[in-house]
């Protein structure tokens, strides 16, 4: 994939990431993770390197635009993004015959949430706090994972990423 296509996809992913921060929700830290549509769609098409690259770059672009580069929020986002991209690429590459987009998406959302909790634990958050938040993270990951998986299926079917 050409550099300008990677730049365009990174910009699109960052825009989705920023847009969902403005969405009202039941919990302030619970977001659908719409930017993962791009990572998931790329990995599902076999563009593994681009998927990981866009996921990492998107985190930096969104943090720069929002004004929180290397803030705790950015570190959470980066840790979650790297874990999610890693799991996405692994499943798409190793187990494509036994898993669908929905399964990969839920697994990626779980990796994203657990990666954020691990980053939180390393930064400051106590083990008790991690355990208190864990069930909500798991429930949210399944819900958002299914949503993102369905959206990615639509994106791929319509050929919106070119």
């Amino acid at each position, binding site marked *: 994939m050409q550099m300008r296509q990677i730049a365009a996809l990174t910009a699109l992913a960052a825009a989705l990431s920023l847009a969902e921060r403005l969405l009202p929700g039941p919990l302030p830290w619970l977001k659908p993770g719409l930017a993962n549509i791009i990572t998931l769609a790329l990995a599902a098409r*076999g563009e593994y390197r681009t998927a990981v690259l866009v996921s990492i770059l998107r985190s930096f672009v969104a943090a720069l635009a929002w004004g929180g580069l290397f803030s*705790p929020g950015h570190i959470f986002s980066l840790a979650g993004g790297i874990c999610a991209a890693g799991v996405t690429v692994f499943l798409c590459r190793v187990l494509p015959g036994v*898993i669908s987009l929905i399964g990969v998406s839920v697994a990626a959302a779980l990796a994203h949430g657990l990666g954020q909790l691990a980053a939180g634990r390393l930064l400051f*958050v106590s083990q*008790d706090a991690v355990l208190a938040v864990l069930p909500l993270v798991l429930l949210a990951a399944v819900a958002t994972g299914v949503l993102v998986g369905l959206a990615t299926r639509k994106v791929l079917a319509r050929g919106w990423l070119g």
Partner: protein
Amino acid sequence: MKSRLRSGLTLLDLIIIVLPLALAFMLLRQGGGTSPSVVRIITPGGVWRQALPAEKAIRLEGSLGMFEVHVSGGRVSIRETHCPDHVCQGMGPIEQNGQAMICVPQRIEVWLEGGEPEVDAVCR
């Protein structure tokens, strides 16, 4: 280019969906239930405990500046804080045993706990 993955739901998909849900419900069933009797506030400078119910505004110092925990009866919320996104304020109010509000930038945790309070308020 089309997706290389299976189009319909597979057994592995179902396992990935059901396992975390089961674990989450198991964890949720373990905690909560009883009424909290103490609010515990962990700050970089120490730990503060306040017996419940109470009517009080507690001002303490976090990593980025002052923050205020508002206690009204058994409900606890963070009213003011000098953190960038105010995510912690959105986590409250809390009122059940085991619930918490956590602010990573301020390095504070506010917990509701059960058990018998030994004193009305203490800081160490």
